[in-house]
């Protein structure tokens, strides 16, 4: 909040408290920010994160670590079955969390069974269908005659893709999946279980991955083309040099140097999850939650969703046009 105290001092009417001095040039339009903020606090926020990756890569643990509470599917469902499902299922679990007066409805969408079969062809299709279904639901609500004041937002804002720490390069499955999904959703690739890589191996692996992403034309978040101005570009360039983040997740605490920290304890030492010298979990958390959360949501709603909407409307225009016997280019022309 830009600091002008006349709104805060004296309650509603700052002038009464500040006395007879009149500020000739102050209208007070910056108070609209405070109004927006109060409204936002009252309404709360929504965030939908999807985690995709083979089983055993630590997806559920990472979600628990990110939000410091048991939000993943395994913690919530009593039957923690370890069997690999025959087909990909999509399981979404919602939680209401609150911090410092800010309320958030967090939905974690899990995809058990991805990449676990013998033949993994088209394993991305159920996921793409799910994402498009969410866009469709939002679109239907938006074009309804009597639509709700605040349309419930179930669109997937961010998809975290877990890359197994092979240390060499991306697998064909990874490339195929990311290529298709980067067009409909924001993808954040992470290197899972990064405690098996030394720092040199990690750097090499990351460089290889970045090259491969570039070679295949895969645009992961933060996308280069959506940078708005120089300031954004600078910040995002720094992030782009660090992706994919090498993360280690843990929801157990250990005593290190007199402090209790989340980590993994092994015979040769304890890996601290939030220590940036050990792994890059802190960067991922800062990116996703503390700095770029709103940006992720905006790109989903103003770019990915709009593309879906345009596609749907054009499809329908051709249907309507054929029904009416009017050539389609007449209808589409005056919209653009």
């Amino acid at each position: 909040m830009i600091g002008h105290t006349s709104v805060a001092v004296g309650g509603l009417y700052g002038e009464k408290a500040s006395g007879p001095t009149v500020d000739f040039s102050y209208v007070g339009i910056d108070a609209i920010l405070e109004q927006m903020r109060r409204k936002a606090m009252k309404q709360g926020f929504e965030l939908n994160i999807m985690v995709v990756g083979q089983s055993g890569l630590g997806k559920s643990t990472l979600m628990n670590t990110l939000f410091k509470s048991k939000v993943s599917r395994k913690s919530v469902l009593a039957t923690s079955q370890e069997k690999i499902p025959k087909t990909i299922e999509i399981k979404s679990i919602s939680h209401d969390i609150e911090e410092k007066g800010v309320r958030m409805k967090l939905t974690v969408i899990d995809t058990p069974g991805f990449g676990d079969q013998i033949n993994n062809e088209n394993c991305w299709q159920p996921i793409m269908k799910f994402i498009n279904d969410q866009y469709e639901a939002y679109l239907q609500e938006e074009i309804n005659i009597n639509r709700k004041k605040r349309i419930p937002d179930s669109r997937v804002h961010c998809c975290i893709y877990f890359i197994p720490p092979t240390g060499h390069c991306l697998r064909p499955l990874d490339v195929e999946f990311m290529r298709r999904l980067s067009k409909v959703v924001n993808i954040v690739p992470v290197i899972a279980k990064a405690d098996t890589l030394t720092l040199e191996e990690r750097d090499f692996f990351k460089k290889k991955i970045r090259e491969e992403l570039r070679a295949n034309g895969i645009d992961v978040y933060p996308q280069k083309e959506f940078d708005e101005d120089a300031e954004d570009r600078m910040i995002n360039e720094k992030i782009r040099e660090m992706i994919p983040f090498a993360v280690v997740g843990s929801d157990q605490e250990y005593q290190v140097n007199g402090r209790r920290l989340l980590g993994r304890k092994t015979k040769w030492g304890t890996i601290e999850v939030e220590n940036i010298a050990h792994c890059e979990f802190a960067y991922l958390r800062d990116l996703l939650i503390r700095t770029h959360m709103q940006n992720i949501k905006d790109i989903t709603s103003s770019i990915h969703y709009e593309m879906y909407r345009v596609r749907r409307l054009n499809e329908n225009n051709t249907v309507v046009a054929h029904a009416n016997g009017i050539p389609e280019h007449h209808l589409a022309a005056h919209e653009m």
Partner: protein
Amino acid sequence: MLIHVSVHRSPPPPPPATLYYEHWVNLRARSQSLHLPLFTTSIKHERNHGNVPLTQLLRHKGAALTQQAEGRPLSSCYRFTRSLLLTSFLCLIVFQEKEYVGFATLPNQVHRKSVKKGFDFTLMVAGESGLGKSTLVNSLFLTDLHKDRKLLNAEERISQTVEITKHTVDIEEKGVKLKLTIVDTPGFGDAVNNTECWRPVTDYINLQFEQYFRDESGLNRKNIQDNRVHCCLYFIPPFGHGLRPVDIEFMKALQDKVNVVPLIAKADCLTPTEIKKLKERLREEIDKYGIKIYQFPDCDSDEDEEFKQQDKELKESTPFAVIGSNTVVEARGQRVRGRLYPWGIVEVENPSHCDFVKLRTMLIRTHMHDLKDITSDGHYENYRAQCIQTMTSKMNADKRVESPIPILPLSTPDVETEKLIKMKDEELRRMQQMLQKMQQQMHEQDL
């Protein structure tokens, strides 16, 4: 000889508590919101010390705490309090670090983006000429919107119709950009025969809604211009005894399309008692005729008493009695905006002289966002629902009409399909009843 060396003379090795000071400061703020008990509140005054190693502070405080213990060596008490404090806030810090995720910065992220984009606001002023509308707008926003306008004389005005004029000005203050549009309605209520003089106004508002509707339903939604009218200030002359027929008709015509805020113009010709009487009269008449003016939203139950009190005062002083002025005069040894009369000086920004300050606070500082919300969620949605219904009924009637906006197959069934479904349901039920009867008969025959 043994030299007694007491522990407190040699400074103890600093524990990793040097880092904790910053955490401590944040922790105090957070713990208040988390409703956690704090062990000591005396440290809060040390806030401005910056990164002072906490052990120094504790030593100072610990010594102060144990000042009463005269004659006793300070060392043991001091050590005890220090360890107590350290362990207590160690627990708190761990508790806090364990739980702190960080999404509380979300409102700031939203706010950063809006500041970059800027805001827009459209204000309409309506009322007869000479009631001080332009002056008031200039006083509110500290601009000069009508630098070179020509005022028509009476002859020219006989055949004039109501026009709609728009002025846009960009205001920036403390980094926040506002694109303000003022819509003026010169000629309103000026003619001899004023029947339907609000028609151009309602047409203009509908036009803005329609344009927004088209933009919103179109394919390229990136840069939609929001020209919908967010608020209409209606000026009631102070000379009469309440609402005149033209006032009633105008407000009723506009109540469902825009937020109407009635104002008593040129309030410096009324004494305080007269103003009070007039306001009561106006409020009664607004209720009597069922005119829906803009209502201030109720404040939450968790706001403090002072806020609630001020909100109550605000609601009780509607309609606001305003005076506008852009000239600066000298009053009580200060330069203020006001009007200079031989019998005194009317100060525009003095709350005891007029309600200008209340109007400005309400319009700009506290309720601007609410006005925009009600326009977009209430008035615009009504317009949109009506528009879609008329369009679909027209389309059903005449199949060859091309839809100006793209229409997708709607999920809610229309009226005719629902009727069909109901008919079929009735038939089904009747058949089921007949079946049951037949079954019963067969059953009785068998017995």
